């Protein structure tokens, strides 16, 4: 079974079955992964689905888009692998992806 691993800031992790054709934010919310708020419902407008992607996965996930960059600019604790989960579409190519959650959402 294809999975995505969400790793909380305290190090605990959970494997979530990968559903294709949704967003990483929605997948996390649907599976009640704590630490992802998604207050704007996926419009790239609130910055509360901040995640950090493992370096080796950055190429597969793709670069930040312009709107996302703007929101991440204002996010505390932004890191090179930072993305907004609502802007990442889930595909079969992401099987095995490791996603880290920040300590807080803004």
């Amino acid at each position: 079974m294809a999975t995505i691993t969400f790793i909380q800031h305290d190090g605990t992790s959970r494997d979530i079955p990968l559903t294709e054709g949704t967003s990483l934010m929605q997948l996390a919310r649907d599976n009640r992964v704590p630490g992802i708020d998604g207050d704007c419902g996926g419009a790239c407008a609130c910055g509360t689905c901040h995640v950090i992607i493992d370096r080796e996965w950055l190429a597969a996930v793709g670069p930040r888009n312009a709107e996302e960059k703007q929101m991440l600019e204002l996010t505390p604790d932004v890191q090179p692998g930072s993305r907004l989960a609502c802007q990442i579409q889930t595909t079969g190519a992401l099987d095995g992806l490791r996603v880290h959650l920040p300590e807080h959402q803004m």
Partner: protein
Amino acid sequence: MNTRTLLPTTLNPTLRRLAEQAITKAQATIPIPLQIKGAHLFLKAKQRALKQARVRPPVETPLPPVEQLALTEIDVSNPFLFRQGLWQSYFKRLRDEAPVHYQPNSPFGPYWSVTRYDDILAVDKNHAVFSAEPFIVMGDPPEGLGVEMFIAMDPPRHDAQRKAVQDVVAPKNLQDMEALIRSRVRDVLDSLPEDQPFDWVPTVSIELTARMLATLLDFPYEQRHKLVYWSDLAAGSAEATGGTADTDETFIGVADMASHFTRLWHDKAARRAAGEKPGFDLISLMQGNDDTKDLVKRPMEFLGNLALLIVGGNDTTRNSMSAGVLALNRYPEEMAKLRADPGLIPNMVSEIIRWQTPLAYMRRMATCDTMLGGQFIRKGDKVMMWYASGNRDERKFANPDAFLIDRDNARQHMSFGYGVHRCMGNRLAELQLKILWEELLPRFSTIEVIGEPERVQSNLVRGYASMMVRVKRAK
């Protein structure tokens, strides 16, 4: 001082630049309170010379039901709409019949109203086309009081200033604050009179927000009520929001605020220079950041950003603290739900903020010709994003006028705004409200609102001036 508003518009560009440089230099060397007084005198002299009428606070008259108006006559800038209980019907009509609506004749000048959730979101996200400059209130503030704040700046200037101060209310700073907030809430609630009416607004809502502000600003605690007074002046301008603040009183208040904060700044700078470890308050953060460490030399930005933090942390939380009590009285079945499951408090906090929408709108200016909802908006047009209406949009929220503490999408309210200007104090606001309700519930068996609260006169602030309440302690 907003240099542009002081200079004649006919000045040629070179002269204008030189004059602006001279004013900026003067700002850096003349003490700020004297500058404010100077602007006040200048404004009065100009009004005398040009025989301009002073702006007087608007006078309340009963407004007609919206059904009696033609679409073109609807003017939602009226500061009495909320107070007279008509705002829901006015905005519903606009959402249904003219979701992007133009009103050419208002006391605040011509403006567009955007009233549906999705359209507001689109405008809020598009800062390139819809600029937050120069002001986010409906009318322009009194001449000479055009302070500059980053809520009314576009990127990249906005980003640099916001980043310098946002840590003061960032989640990681909040962990340290939680215990302090809780002890203060307990202190205030324990001293409430039992079984006799008292005014909830000054006793609880204002008191708690004033204490919080004094902490964030490291302002002398015993003088904390000055912060509330200044905030009310800043948000209550007749010119800007249709409020009741008198222009002369506002100038005097702003000069007083400037002198207090300039002193506080220099005092902190001197202690830092002497090797004292800087605190985690707003001014210390500004002094520790390259983009803002000389902000005191740019007085209108300095004052503007302090005023922003004070107003931002004052009216909003204060009125949400009152609104929760009112809403649970209006919807007793929700109070029963809450008593049965206090785990609903976090979601209820979002629902309170949605239901109340303490700030009705933010303003934008179109930077180019553009289309929105089928309407042609011209460069330079004023565009109001009515969050209060978006939060009651039936297209987004089922049964939108009802207060439902377990509403599944309550968190998607737009009271914090969206995009780069999204409220940076949102987590602190939620924390304060959460703690208030965690402490209220076990302490009191009834929290009863007596009569109708008195609502604030403003087209921006949706708040309560007074609300009588009686409480009974839990046995």
